[in-house]
């Protein structure tokens, strides 16, 4: 399968990655090669095979629904690029 740069721009938008036209061209080449390589999977005999999501087919452990963590908002917000009064600041969303 081959991707053109319009398709790369569409995927990049879904992935929230800005790409220039030049980059879209470059990625189209590399990604097409990778998808071509992955097409080897089409040869696999997979009828009746269950998909495997976890190596040990383990199930999620449940724990009692109780509070285990203390409030560390300031500690965790110390690594944020922009905060004010405990809030993360982003460009205006609602006009």
């Amino acid at each position: 399968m081959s991707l053109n740069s319009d398709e790369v721009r569409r995927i990049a938008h879904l992935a929230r990655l800005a790409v220039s036209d030049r980059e879209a061209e470059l990625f189209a080449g590399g990604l097409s090669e990778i998808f071509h390589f992955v097409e080897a999977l089409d040869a696999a005999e997979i009828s009746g095979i269950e998909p495997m999501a976890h190596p040990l087919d383990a199930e999620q452990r449940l724990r009692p629904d109780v509070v285990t963590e203390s409030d560390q908002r300031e500690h965790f917000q110390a690594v944020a690029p922009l905060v004010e009064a405990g809030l993360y600041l982003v460009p205006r969303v609602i006009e």
Partner: protein
Amino acid sequence: MTLETLAGWSRRLYARDISSRELAELYLARIDRFDAQLNSFITVTPELALEAADAADRRIAKGERAPLLGLPVAQKDIFCTEGVRTTCGSRMLEGFIAPYTATAVERMNLAGSVMLGKTNMDEFAMGSSNETSHFGAVRNPWKPDCVPGGSSGGSAAAVAARLAPAATGTDTGGSIRQPAAFCGITGVKPTYGRVSRYGMIAFASSLDQGGPMATSAEDCAILLNAMVGADSRDSTSVERPREDFTAGLSEGIRGLRIGLPREFFGDGLDPSVRAVVDSALAVLRERGAELVEITLPNSSLSVPAYYVVAPAECSSNLARYDGVRFGHRCESPRDLMDLYTRSRAEGFGAEVKRRIMIGTYVLSAGYYDAYYLKAQKVRRLIANDFRQAFAQVDVIAGPTSPEVPFRLGAKSADPVKMYLSDIYTIAVNLAGLPGLSVPAGIVGNLPVGMQLIGNYFDEARLLNVAHQFQQDTDWHTRMPAAFA
């Protein structure tokens, strides 16, 4: 001074032959002297190291004993370390000071280890050569124009050059074993779930596993003892009875059945690597092991399946880097979309973007069944191959990598070629099995590794075989002459 193994240093610490502070100073001085040539560390933490060493010396003075007490180690920069910069090799986290410590590191700290610093790595562990790091490539201590392997290339190079006696790594598709092979050290990728992933920055959560890298199997066993264990903060970590991985090291291997997958000795294997692995297998046969040819018929599908599953998980995991809560944020964003797209475009390098886009595509509407679901089914075929193999043999052996370390830049322009460097390691991650690499020989002054693969939770046996191999060989004691 002789540069000992962890086990050797530990004996000398308890004999009061050297203090933990002196030991930390010794390695810090080596980092200072040699690392400009290698670039194996992103961050060195001398003050913290000396503080931890002094604390260890006080404990030793009181007669305390702990598995890693006073021993210096390097941590791969994928593990969060509270108060210390944790970059994951990315511009995205260039200024990220971790607000908490990874469980694996916490356990090593409790066992008394002394962190020297954080090692270089491929960006977000995505690479097989350590060339995708935002902080520059790492050089192979055996030959500076060659790669050390990746993604744990900094840890491997640091241990090989004895800038640290041991280090941690993580392995999603071969990232402990392949650099261990390329740098001539021993590295273990444990069974999925053995080592907590809490605080280990996520790449592909169903494949990622942390593990030890050191100069000998014995040292890996010592480290693994400290690293493993169920963790309430990682629901995929596995509850297992306590095990001492050093206990069975000296047992004989007479009658051990070693499977040699036909597919691992085929066309793509460099003949000089094959010759090394063949003579290593002869050593094990001398010790009484029985070599049995086996087949893993779906092996050739493991790299293609991996490059659907791992990018899918990566695209989901790396969605957290939004320029809002932590990590890189672009200057003067116009609106929220611009903030997201530009922060991510500036923060991530080309290989990470490529994998995010592959993952986004294979998970997008209309393509999920054709790619992701199909790859997950193939993943089960690969795991089933191993299940059948382990009905006949105790361990599986073969080369770790199809070739000797390649030159810097040799594969950077060709992603598929780079991906194929992990052709013998990736299936192990897909199946969730434990594997290790031991130094097995040297070709043209470059080390070659032999891979041993075990059944689920059979790390003790792998370490036993590797240790027995190291009783009859001295490849693991060799070090690159320039760093003597």
